């Protein structure tokens, strides 16, 4: 600033300029796009889950008493707070690294056995840090188990035994080194149990050889030497199930699974006793299964629909204790003292659960008996883990960790649910969204915001809060009310379309509605049709679709969703169909279909009650129309000649296209069934190509403009077809892991296929490239990600496809006068005249999934969402993946926004939309357009859930939340003041002029 020639007459102007500069500085500070630390959690939420618990280990020593270590079906090892259910720490293992068993060693390490018994890891109990990892040479993955020797002196290096098949590994629990390894070299030996008789240096291993021989080994604890071995054969054979009852007695099932065999062994002598079950159960017939019950002297067997608890008194003597009927759960044994053991039996009775704890002293009577009421939406009880504590009156108290049918986890103590976790949300299968009701009087959504009493109470609380009279609990309640009534958590539709319900379907067959404001569960329902029953033994959930979206005809009705499932895993298993109200979670209709479900096609048609028409293709290639009413049939027949569909047969390496033809006469039961007619097929040669991935455009994607204005005022027309299918095939030699093939063997073909006519619009070959391939299709482009073996890097390629047949519509006058063919109908049977532009870029990360943002009108530029290997979501501007990027873009290209060519795509730390969080086990990302054009909602799920909203071109259509209204106000006030001042001054001056 030129202060040297500062003169008094310009002082004011300089002050004004200074103020201007200060203001400038103030503005430039707010230019950055990334999120500030204090903005975290304003528009996003992150929920952590662990999945369905498989094993639980309670820690008995002092410090760990508050914790339980669990392993789950989502391959998570976690330590939970027993008081609150919060996660202390958790580790998510790889997708295929299934946890076989979990235990605690040395009182400070959590030991997990995973990957079919081949990986053993130790985690630090307090903080979950990995201490050591050890890979065991397992030739054939078989059922493996873990046995931690517990009775050694503390401080001494204990051994961990891993056994599976015919081999035993002993590892040091300090550092995971293999101390000894013993191959009990007999083919087809299956070790069933390993145990250590009290205070001895010998461990016993029992198992079956083939189907008829029983073997006992005595092995030295220190060296793994076989001290003694004995074998005996039993003529009617074994089926492989056995249960260790005493240190010298095993009860097994015979080959026919209809009778029990007790095997007693002592000093190389093995005796068999066949026990006839009809002596115990008079009306016994059918098959028996042994339940694993690690309880001395007890045996649990399952017959038909009930379970018998038997006490083993001797090799030949069984005593009937109790009969339990389904549904039930039995816990493992829990040692209370040196001699005493206890176990729990839980039995479900309608909406109640009866808890019984028995000890081996007195099996007829219970130590503890409780009954609790259980929410019916949690389904039946599946598993129970028991833990004891000393009550204030010095007696034993018990707490139960219960896993329910919907995968939720509960802790029950003193007949009450202490906490519960909705862990079914860790295994979401599919999701859809529903709009909330319009704000008006009398709207009710599951939990209505408040009734009068609640309202009064709330206000009273707030009053207390303001008068500083509230207790801490009340303060928390006020906070909760504030959060609930705050703008983003309301149960009504908002102006910007940010508030919605996300309806998710979990693997357990539970449907939950989550509020986008904070991710709370608004309602949940365990679908009765997706529960195990007589008619449907092994149901599983497939997809969820919007069934009815009230628009104008049926505004008074609630929207509903359609849940489709299948009875059993075969493709010909009958389908399950269930319609659920989106606002209340009430099941409106539920049925088991007569046909199977292989494809589900929501049609862009609705009937007069706004129910969406769906075609379900069964395994016999028949199409079934739903809803089954004459109205929908009428709408369907109008459009039937224009309905085409395709199927990708990955095993056969084929893609086929079909049309529909009417099969039956009207007014018959077959009226809603249509026959498929094969129109086209593409056969990939199986020796050179294998389908790796297919991708299509999202059905509801909206494209704003079909023309793209390029640099020199030229127009290119996008080839926009809803029927584009992207297929990537890889060479079968290179279908394995990266590094398993040489670059010469690896080939990747990318296809763009029109699914109506079966035309290959474009086919391109990437040499030296291999999978895993991930792809996303949007508008007229496709982006795919693969590995380049020659460059040793991941690569992303983009293909953009343009329609040349419209390329002559460039004359503005023609467009103005309407002499263009842009509105003429286009037939996909015409020979396409397309131009393709493509480009490849290096990309540092490997990718778990890919998606693209979607906005309400498709005006906003797009961002690619990339689920990285670190379980984060990266937003990458599509402009970086523009095939028209060149090394030196011309001035006009620069103005258009073309970035100079670089060989790799930039990864900017600020563009991680998950900021510092990780969506553990990330599987999928769903984009939902908000009403506000600039904004798109993103829901990503895996083991965790994460929701946020992003604006790819920034919020150009609304003021941001951090917009300084105060500054605006000050400016206005200053302006007004300035106007008045200048007005007054000019008046004065004018007066003076006049007085001159």
């Amino acid at each position: 600033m030129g202060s040297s020639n500062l003169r008094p007459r310009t002082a004011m102007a300089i002050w004004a300029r200074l103020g201007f500069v200060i203001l400038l500085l103030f503005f430039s500070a707010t230019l950055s796009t990334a999120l500030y630390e204090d903005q975290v959690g304003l528009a996003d939420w992150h929920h952590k889950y662990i999945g369905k618990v498989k094993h639980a280990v309670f820690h008995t020593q002092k410090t760990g008493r508050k914790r339980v270590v669990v392993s789950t079906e989502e391959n998570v090892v976690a330590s939970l707070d027993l008081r609150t259910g919060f996660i202390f720490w958790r580790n998510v293992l790889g997708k295929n690294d299934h946890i076989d068993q979990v235990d605690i060693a040395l009182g400070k390490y959590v030991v997990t056995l995973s990957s079919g018994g081949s990986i053993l890891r130790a985690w630090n109990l307090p903080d979950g840090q990995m201490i050591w990892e050890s890979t065991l040479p397992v030739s054939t993955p078989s059922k493996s188990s873990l046995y931690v020797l517990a009775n050694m002196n503390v401080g001494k290096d204990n051994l961990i035994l891993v056994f599976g098949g015919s081999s035993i590994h002993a590892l040091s629990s300090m550092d995971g080194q293999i101390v000894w390894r013993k191959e009990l070299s007999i083919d087809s030996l299956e070790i069933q149990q390993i145990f250590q008789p009290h205070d001895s240096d010998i461990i016993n291993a029992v198992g079956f050889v083939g189907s008829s021989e029983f073997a006992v080994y005595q092995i030295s604890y220190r060296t793994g030497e076989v001290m003694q071995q004995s074998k005996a054969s039993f003529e009617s054979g074994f089926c492989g199930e056995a249960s260790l009852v005493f240190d010298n007695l095993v009860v097994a099932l015979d080959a026919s699974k209809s009778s029990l065999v007790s095997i007693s062994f002592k000093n190389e002598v093995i005796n068999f006793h066949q026990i006839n079950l009809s002596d115990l159960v008079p009306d016994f017939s059918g098959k028996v299964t042994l339940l694993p019950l690690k309880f001395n002297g007890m045996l649990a067997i399952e017959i038909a629909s009930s379970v018998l608890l038997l006490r083993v008194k001797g090799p030949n003597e069984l005593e009937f204790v109790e009969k339990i009927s389904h549904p039930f759960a039995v816990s493992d044994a829990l040692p209370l003292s040196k001699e005493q053991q206890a176990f729990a039996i839980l039995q479900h009775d309608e909406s109640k659960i009866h808890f019984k704890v028995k000890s081996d002293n007195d099996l007829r009577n219970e130590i503890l008996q409780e009954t609790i009421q259980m929410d019916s939406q949690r389904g039946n009880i599946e598993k129970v883990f028991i833990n004891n504590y000393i009550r204030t009156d010095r007696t034993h108290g018990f707490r139960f960790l219960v896993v329910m049918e919907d995968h939720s986890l509960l802790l029950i103590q003193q007949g009450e649910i202490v906490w519960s976790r909705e862990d079914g949300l860790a295994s979401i299968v599919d999701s859809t969204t529903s709009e909330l009701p319009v704000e008006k009087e009398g709207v009710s959504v599951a939990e209505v915001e408040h009734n009068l009493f609640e309202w009064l109470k709330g206000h009273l609380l707030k009053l207390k809060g303001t008068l500083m009279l509230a207790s801490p609990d009340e303060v928390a309640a006020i906070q909760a009310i504030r959060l609930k009534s705050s703008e983003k958590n309301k149960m009504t539709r908002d102006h910007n379309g940010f508030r919605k319900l996300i309806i998710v379907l979990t693997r357990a067959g539970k449907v939950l509605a989550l509020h986008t404001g904070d991710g709370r569960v608004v309602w949940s329902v365990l679908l009765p049709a997706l529960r195990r029953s007589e008619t449907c033994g092994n149901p599983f959930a497939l997809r969820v679709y919007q069934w009815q979206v009230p628009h104008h005809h049926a505004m008074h009705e609630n929207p509903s969703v359609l849940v489709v499932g299948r009875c059993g895993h075969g493709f010909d298993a009958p389908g399950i169909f269930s319609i659920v109200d989106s606002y209340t979670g009430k099941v409106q209709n539920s049925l088991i279909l007569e046909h199977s479900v292989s494809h589900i096609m929501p049609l862009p048609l609705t009937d007069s009650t706004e129910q969406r028409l769906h075609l379900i293709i069964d395994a016999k290639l028949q199409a079934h129309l739903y809803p089954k009413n004459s109205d929908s049939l009428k709408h369907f027949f109008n459009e039937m000649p224009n309905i085409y569909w395709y199927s990708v047969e990955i095993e056969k390496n084929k893609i086929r296209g079909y049309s529909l033809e009417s099969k039956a006469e009207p007014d018959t039961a077959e009226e809603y069934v249509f026959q498929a007619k094969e129109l086209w097929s593409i056969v990939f040669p199986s020796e050179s190509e294998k389908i790796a991935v297919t991708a299509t455009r999202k059905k509801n994607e909206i494209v704003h403009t079909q023309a793209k204005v390029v640099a020199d005022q030229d127009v290119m027309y996008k080839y926009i077809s809803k029927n584009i299918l992207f297929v990537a095939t890889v060479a079968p030699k290179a279908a394995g892991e990266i590094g398993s093939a040489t670059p010469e063997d690896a080939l990747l073909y990318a296809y763009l296929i029109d699914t109506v006519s079966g035309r290959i619009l474009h086919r391109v070959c990437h040499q030296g490239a291999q999978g895993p391939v991930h792809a996303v299709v949007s508008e007229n482009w496709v982006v795919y990600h693969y590995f380049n073996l020659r460059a040793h890097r991941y690569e992303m390629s983009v293909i953009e496809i343009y329609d040349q047949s419209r390329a002559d519509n460039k004359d503005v006058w023609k467009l103005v006068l309407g002499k263009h063919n842009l509105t003429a109908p286009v037939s996909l049977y015409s020979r396409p005249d397309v131009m393709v532009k493509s480009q490849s870029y290096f990309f540092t990360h490997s990718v778990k999934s890919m998606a693209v943002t979607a906005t309400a009108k498709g005006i906003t530029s797009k961002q690619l969402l990339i689920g990285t290997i670190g379980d984060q979501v990266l937003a990458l501007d599509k402009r970086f993946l523009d095939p028209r990027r060149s090394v030196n873009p011309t001035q006009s290209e620069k103005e258009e926004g073309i970035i100079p060519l670089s060989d790799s795509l930039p990864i900017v730390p600020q563009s991680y939309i998950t900021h510092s969080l990780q969506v553990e086990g990330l599987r999928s990302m769903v984009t939902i357009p908000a009403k506000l054009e600039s904004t798109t909602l993103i829901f990503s799920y895996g083991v965790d859930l994460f929701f946020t909203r992003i604006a790819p071109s920034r919020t150009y259509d609304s003021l941001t939340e951090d917009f300084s209204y105060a500054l605006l106000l000050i400016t206005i006030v200053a302006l007004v003041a300035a106007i008045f001042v200048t007005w007054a001054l000019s008046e004065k001056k004018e007066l003076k002029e006049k007085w001159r």
Partner: protein
Amino acid sequence: MSEGWCRGRSLALFVLVILLPIWIARGFQSDELLQDDEEFGLEGGRPAADPQPPTNPIRSPIRRRPDLDPPSGSADSKSVQFSLEHNLGASEFSPAGTFTARLKSWSHGGQTLTKLRFSRNALTEEEKRAFERLLKEDGHYTIRVPSNVLNPSGEDYVISSVRARCIPRESLDEHFVIHTDGVNIIAVNYGSAGACQYPRLLRYPAKWSFTSYTVLKNSEQAPRTPTFAEELLDGEDGLGEGVKPPEKSFWAKYWMYLVPLGFIVMNAMTQAMNMPEEQQVAGQSTSQGQVAQRAPPTTTTVRRR
């Protein structure tokens, strides 16, 4: 002598210079061959322009590019035949023509189909009636060829269809695009030779014979990912360049603040300018006052007038 030798050498050099690019080009061409589309037949040409003997409805492909011939000796070839079958709305496929191609085996082990020729069988009366029926009901005309042409197993067929009403023009114009990976047929794109109008009108051809065009397509090679070694060195700079989010100009973003601010500044400026002026004016006015004082009689006389 030496001059002659010199001339001879320069001649040889000249010949070499002339031949070298040709040789390079030739080598280059043979390299390109695998990746190039092989086109036979007239693509998109008006069939009416071609005189056609009415007795022979079979049309063989007409033209092929002479430069597609690979260098002799690098490959040996044998002829293969496979049949085209069609379905006129009936339940079964029936033979409709024969494709003939040459199979070239390359020294490096690959095989490719080249020189595709096609001969259509004449439509029988029955087929003609079936085709008319298809036209009437706007049905699909479906064709198929075996996917493995060397030893057709009879199982894997590549199928393609078109609405029958798209085909008739003067004669029945059809267009085949056969996608191969050298020897296996991946897909056949079958359709009309030109555009197919949407509402499809019922129209019968003047001649009930097929005019066929065939194109054989192999896959393109993807362009290689550009690598800039030099940019990697100053990659920071380029990265920083790319990192910048799309930004509007400062003016576009903050005009709503700038305009009022500008006003304020302008006002302040004018005030700042005015005030000294006023002082001056005031000074002047005092002097004027003096002047006025000096010359009051004139003004008063004026006013009093």
